[in-house]
């Protein structure tokens, strides 16, 4: 399977965009031609832009009756052959979980953007948070994998939404773009290049759409109406889609494959960025908006001669175990600042041999550099 380069549907140039607008443009560039959504702060601008842009590029837009209907509609559209997306925030993301499990189990490519706000519950609808990171991995019942990406800029709202579609098509897996209110509403420069790299799901007539010879492989995916007489079910199924709800072997083989096709390709999927890590004694591990503040703090401390660096996680799930493990061997202390009560810090502790300190804030505001400075002084 290979990718192809296409002309960018949006003219090459530098634009002053919000994160939410950039995400919609990234989706259009990736080939998204179906969007179903439901209004929710702080993600609604994505839906509003998609309503306009899909009309311009000949796609389908529909505002559904709720978030469950929205994600269900994109799964239906994906099986009809569409690259499809929805966007939401915490409460809607909670409602979508059952269908995300359906997409994972039926290996349906689709993209969900979660512009996180301060939860739990209705919480602070217009304020920022990163409280959905663990839900992104474990929100639906049973053992499954998703891919979750974490943009830290308007540019990455575009880049990672585009990449999210490509990964989703390659691995036939629901892909989540875990943004937040601050990134979604931030305005800054967005560079759009003349060409974009696109991946499409592979098709092979007559091949089983739910099984492969190789362990952890990704089967081809035909669409409805192509004469393949597809049998798609969220119940345990064999390679051709027949329900096998009391066969232990079929169940364990299927569960194993939908997990292994992601975990075995972890190095291909995960992306991280290093800052000053060569000689660091202490390092921050950060993601999303908080990585911007953290990097600012690292720059300041470096000016004072402190040996501190930063590892930025661009991919949250599958977790970048290798990069975190390597860092844990190299430094004495790892500090994880985040806008929740330590969701990623807990994951980091699984893989870091050194001391891991969680710096958390859940007041609906971004973590400021002075707050991180203050916290660092205490440790």
């Amino acid at each position, binding site marked *: 399977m290979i990718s192809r380069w296409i002309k960018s549907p949006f003219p090459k140039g530098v634009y002053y965009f919000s994160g939410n607008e950039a995400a919609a443009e990234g989706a259009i560039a990736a080939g998204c031609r179906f969007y179903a959504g439901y209004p929710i702060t702080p993600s609604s601008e994505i839906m509003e832009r998609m309503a306009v842009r899909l009309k311009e590029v000949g796609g389908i837009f529909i505002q559904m009756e709720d978030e469950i*209907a929205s994600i269900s509609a994109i799964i239906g559209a994906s099986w009809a052959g569409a690259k499809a997306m929805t966007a939401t925030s915490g409460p809607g993301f909670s409602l979508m979980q059952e269908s995300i499990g359906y997409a994972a189990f039926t290996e349906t490519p689709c993209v969900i953007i979660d512009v996180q706000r301060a939860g739990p519950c209705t919480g602070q609808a217009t304020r920022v948070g990163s409280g959905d990171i663990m839900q992104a991995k474990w929100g639906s019942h049973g053992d499954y994998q998703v891919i979750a990406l974490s943009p830290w800029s308007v540019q990455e709202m575009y880049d990672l939404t585009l990449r999210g579609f490509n990964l989703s098509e390659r691995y036939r897996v629901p892909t989540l773009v875990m943004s937040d209110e601050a990134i979604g509403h931030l305005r800054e420069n967005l560079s759009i290049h003349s060409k974009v790299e696109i991946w499409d799901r592979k098709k092979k007539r007559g091949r089983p759409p739910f099984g492969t010879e190789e362990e952890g492989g990704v089967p081809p995916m035909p*669409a*409805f109406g192509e004469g393949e*007489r597809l049998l798609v079910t969220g119940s345990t199924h064999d390679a051709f889609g027949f329900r096998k709800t009391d066969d232990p072997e079929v169940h364990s083989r299927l569960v194993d494959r939908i997990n292994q096709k992601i975990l075995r390709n972890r190095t291909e999927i995960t992306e991280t960025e290093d800052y000053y890590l060569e000689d660091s004694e202490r390092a921050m591990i950060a993601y999303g908006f908080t990585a911007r503040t953290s990097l600012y703090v690292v720059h300041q401390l470096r000016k004072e001669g402190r040996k501190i660096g930063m590892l930025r996680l661009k991919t949250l799930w599958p977790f970048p175990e290798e990069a975190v493990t390597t860092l844990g061997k190299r430094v004495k202390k790892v500090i994880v600042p985040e806008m929740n009560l330590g969701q990623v810090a807990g994951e980091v502790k699984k893989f870091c041999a050194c001391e891991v300190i969680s710096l958390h804030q859940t007041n609906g505001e971004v973590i400021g550099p002075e707050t991180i400075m203050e916290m660092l002084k205490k440790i």
Partner: protein
Amino acid sequence: MVRAMEKYIRTGVKATPFCPGCGHGILMNSILRALDELNMDMKKMLFVSGIGCAAWIPSPHFNGDTLHTLHGRALAFATGAKLYNPDLCVMVISGDGDLSSIGGNHLIHAARRNLDLKVVCANNMIYGMTGGQVASTTPKGFKSSTTGEGNPHRPFDLCKLVAAAGATYVARYSVTQPLALIQALKKAIRHVGFSFIEVLSPCPTQFGRRNLMDRPEEMIQDLLRRCISEEEAEGLAEKELSEKIITGEFEP
């Protein structure tokens, strides 16, 4: 014996999973006969279903594209598929609990949009697959595993519900009226817009045995006695009418 509808059955399917006396087999046959009489191309048919006994009517049995979805969500999945590929003839086949209780919100909104979906609601007035719990369609006073002294609440009139929400073809028939049912299915398939057919289908296993109709034929007899046309209903007193089920076409 050559089975006339065999060409519409998926290769490898040997038998249906339905209980003795279940009406879903008659409904399955009626749907296939309607498709056959209209010469529908199974390669362009998409059958979408939710969760429950009725959701197994198309999946895996029907030899077209089938999408067996989550409980209550069949119409939302179908909406996405139909909008993206309008060339598909999309038929949603599911039960009363699936479509009107957990999926009630999707039902009224799909009817409101009047998107070209053919919805067949197999109404057995009970949650069959999960063991006979009361449904939003169980008539008042009838017993279920969660209403041992009789259902204290009124049931939905599904046809009135979807007609009020905007459905443009609405009919109700019982599996005891197969010829009229097949004609209605054909009309629904030809109709461009949201069509809804409520099909009364007996469930002796979960409904009948709790309501003094243990044997399949007792439930069939009961449906034959209770299902009347609108014309037949006209002269009846309110008390007589209360135990009847009015069948026929209500929209357009």
